[in-house]
């Protein structure tokens, strides 16, 4: 059936979820990876902590720098947790490093800057020039429906450059990003790689794809922060990126509480409009906002589905409650849209004209000039006016026929 | 300096594409052809080949203008490189699936590899060691692994035609040559850096 939306039977992820695999039993890869982590008994976590210590010792033998490791941080709850593990539990001296994409909420600024007050660590911040960032916001949105590409690029490029420059062989990342789609299992002990960065964080684009636009002119020198070191440079220093989530049991709700109590970490002052959680993504006002709205526009699900799925798995919420949350939040057009339109000098109409070109024909269909899709709670609903011209509508419908 | 033009001889052998891709990757003018005019225009000829001796010779006789090519290579001394089966057909006879006539441009026969207890076909990366100096093997250090896929090998009649050997239980000829006529048992187009160097050296022949 056209545009039928199937859902994982345990969480609320649609089959359309990015990078998700659903096996024949109807349970998605994200649930299965979570279950694999849950099956690890406590004493195995002790063994995993020992494994981390051994890996740290291995890299320290090659370490010419004065820092034991580099921690890429945003100032979020995860960053605090990573810094806490490294400095307090393992007694190491890290270099903290932040990519500043100019989208921090005020409480995000404050959390970030507090880090070197509460941790024994030096902190480098690398922020590209604001005009370059505005251009990338516009280009990212027009080209791939993601104004936040610059953020993902910066976060996953600049720290590795710094590690290579400072000759620090160990980078400590936090959550296994990919448990969101269940790409890897606990015993894979997966490490940071250029392929995962290029394909998933940067979605197949690199800095050189943004040079040469007629309206938003950028040159190579504007994109130095966006480059990734070569294999030769990485091997010379012996840089490896390990994920704390492989060695310490990850529970975001518990971590938040711990970071608040120990270090005065602050959660969002205002509730987010597109999700019920308040402890995520303070480093970027658009991550839960219009960046994520674009995920909904493309694939029909949003950040709330991500959060609810995680909370269903950890038992904080039932699937029914999760579905209620999805119904309430996934589709919301949040007010940061207007903040962004002002930032990049675009009108709301221009925004929707571009956004609608990214609607996925596997999920959406057009009826009476409105966008429609199936819902997880049953039936279908309309979600806004179609902002495409006739030619674009024809092309959309043609694509839909080809795919389904 | 004369502009180089390599013709990869097309007689219905599977790997003309890979050879030509490598040449293009190196920035060399390349054509894949069996047409007389284009063969004549070329400065260098490459004969690739996979499969068996007998079936290759049959296709060569059927699909290539051999009188012209023989004249070009044997008499006019145009540089010629045979790869894998393309090297083996230079022999007088090949003994794979019966006795077959080869081109006879380099004296010798093609026989099954004596691999002892080792598995056949001989598939994978093996070392090639020069037994005499040659332009083709110039600039290689001692350890040079090239990619081979063969069950048969060339037994030269004249030691002067043996340029380099490879060991697999016993030694067998991996590079042979007589003046401008050269043959390599391995696949340069699959041998990464080492293979590229061989091709570049081949292009130095005039």
């Amino acid at each position, binding site marked *: 059936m056209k545009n039928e939306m199937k859902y994982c039977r345990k969480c609320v992820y649609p089959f359309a979820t990015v990078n998700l*695999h659903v096996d024949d039993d109807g349970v998605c890869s994200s649930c299965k990876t979570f279950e694999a982590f849950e099956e690890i008994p406590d004493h195995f976590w002790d063994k995993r902590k020992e494994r981390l210590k051994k890996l740290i010792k291995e890299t320290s033998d090659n370490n010419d720098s004065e820092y034991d490791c580099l921690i890429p941080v945003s100032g979020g709850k995860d960053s605090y947790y990573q810094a806490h593990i490294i400095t307090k539990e393992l007694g190491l001296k890290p270099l903290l490093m932040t990519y500043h994409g100019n989208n921090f909420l005020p409480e995000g600024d404050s959390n970030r800057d507090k880090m070197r007050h509460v941790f024994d660590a030096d902190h480098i911040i690398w922020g590209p020039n604001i005009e370059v960032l505005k251009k990338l916001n516009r280009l990212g949105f027009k080209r791939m429906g993601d104004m936040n590409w610059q953020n993902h690029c910066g976060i996953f490029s600049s720290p590795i450059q710094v590690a290579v420059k400072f000759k620090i062989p160990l980078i400590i990342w936090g959550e296994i990003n990919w448990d969101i789609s269940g790409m890897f299992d606990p015993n894979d002990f997966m*490490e940071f790689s250029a392929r995962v960065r290029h394909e998933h964080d940067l979605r197949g684009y690199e800095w050189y794809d943004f040079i040469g636009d007629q309206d938003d002119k950028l040159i190579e020198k504007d994109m130095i922060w966006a480059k990734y070191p070569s294999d030769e440079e990485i091997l010379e220093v012996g840089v490896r990126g390990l994920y704390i989530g492989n060695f310490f049991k990850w529970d975001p709700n518990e971590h938040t509480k711990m970071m608040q109590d120990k270090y005065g970490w602050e959660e969002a002052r205002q509730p987010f409009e597109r999700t019920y959680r308040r402890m995520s993504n303070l480093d970027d006002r658009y991550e839960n906002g219009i960046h994520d709205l674009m995920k909904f526009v493309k694939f029909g699900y949003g950040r709330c589905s991500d959060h609810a799925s995680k909370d269903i798995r950890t038992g904080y919420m039932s699937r029914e409650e999760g579905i209620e949350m999805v119904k309430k939040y996934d589709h919301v057009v949040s007010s940061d849209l207007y903040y962004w339109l002002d930032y990049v000098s675009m009108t709301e109409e221009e925004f929707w004209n571009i956004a609608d070109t990214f609607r996925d024909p596997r999920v959406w269909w057009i009826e009476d000039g409105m966008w429609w899709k199936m819902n997880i709670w049953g039936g279908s609903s309309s979600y806004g006016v179609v902002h495409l011209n006739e030619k674009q509508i024809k092309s959309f419908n043609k694509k839909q026929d080809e795919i389904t | 300096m004369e502009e180089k033009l390599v013709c990869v001889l097309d007689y219905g052998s599977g790997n003309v594409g890979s050879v030509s891709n490598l040449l293009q990757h190196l920035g060399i003018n390349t054509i894949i052809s069996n047409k007389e005019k284009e063969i004549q225009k070329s400065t260098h000829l490459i004969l690739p080949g996979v499969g068996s001796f007998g079936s290759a010779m049959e296709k060569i006789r059927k699909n290539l203008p051999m009188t012209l090519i023989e004249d070009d290579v044997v008499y006019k001394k145009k540089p010629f490189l045979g790869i894998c089966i393309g090297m083996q057909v230079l022999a007088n006879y090949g003994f794979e699936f019966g006795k077959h006539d080869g081109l006879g441009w380099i004296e010798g026969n093609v026989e099954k590899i004596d691999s002892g207890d080792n598995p056949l076909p001989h598939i994978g990366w*093996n070392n090639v060691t020069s037994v005499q100096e040659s332009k083709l093997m110039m600039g290689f250090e001692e350890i040079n692994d090239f990619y081979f896929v063969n069950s048969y090998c060339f037994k030269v009649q004249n030691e002067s035609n043996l340029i380099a050997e490879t060991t697999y239980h016993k030694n067998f000829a991996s590079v042979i040559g007589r003046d401008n006529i050269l043959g390599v048992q391995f696949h340069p187009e699959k041998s990464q850096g080492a293979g590229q160097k061989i091709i570049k050296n081949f292009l130095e022949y005039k």
Partner: protein
Amino acid sequence: MKKNRVIPVLLLKNGWLVQSRGFSRHQNLGNPIDAVKRLSKWASDELVYLDISRDNIYDTRRDDQGYKNISSFLGIIENISKEVFMPMTIGGKIKNLNDIEDRLLLGADKVSINTEAYNNNKLIEDAAKEFGSQCIVVSMDVKKTELGNRVFTKFGKEDTGYGPLYWAKLMEDYGAGEILLNSIDRDGSGEGYDIELLDQISSECSCPIIAFGGVGEWEHFKEALDKTNVDSVAAANIFQYTDQSVYMAKKYLSNNGCNVRKPDLLKI
């Protein structure tokens, strides 16, 4: 002497590169092409690329990325052959000589045949005659049953009733150039190869055997090379866990006395 090959295997399922566990659980890793570029950069000895899709739908479900979403397997191979700098074996869904020819023309050096070798023995014989034995790899999947090891086909679902040694020797007689020997029980387990199985087959067959199924550490490669007569060692999942994985594997094996090519990076 000839080196033992260390061979990365890429598994393609419906347009996604995947991890496989026990032939029943899969995890999407990414698009079909990028991983090939990385493996080329790390001077891999060979590449085995297997299509394990249960049907003919190839769709990464999004069109907003920096690469094409290619909707056919042959289309995918065509794109891969532009990025692959080592010999490549293509397997999956090969039913007849035309299928083999299509893949060879698109850039494959060898093809791997599994289920169809059982459905139609003559295919291997005919293929070896037409294209040469060295082009034909027979891939076999082995599972432990109450009656001992058995060869399974159709993605590990159907028991052929044959033991692996009988099957391997039969395929060799028919003209297979190499055998890719996989253990279904070990698939994605990270617990190491089924050494007993590898030893049994590699000591009796005269064609090269490629070990597959179960690698969780570089040490497992060494174990197979030290304890059995396998010609080559292959793995799928593990090469996607770390950067410069092939380089690090060869570094480990070289440093520990194995007869493999030295680690290298290509200038691509």
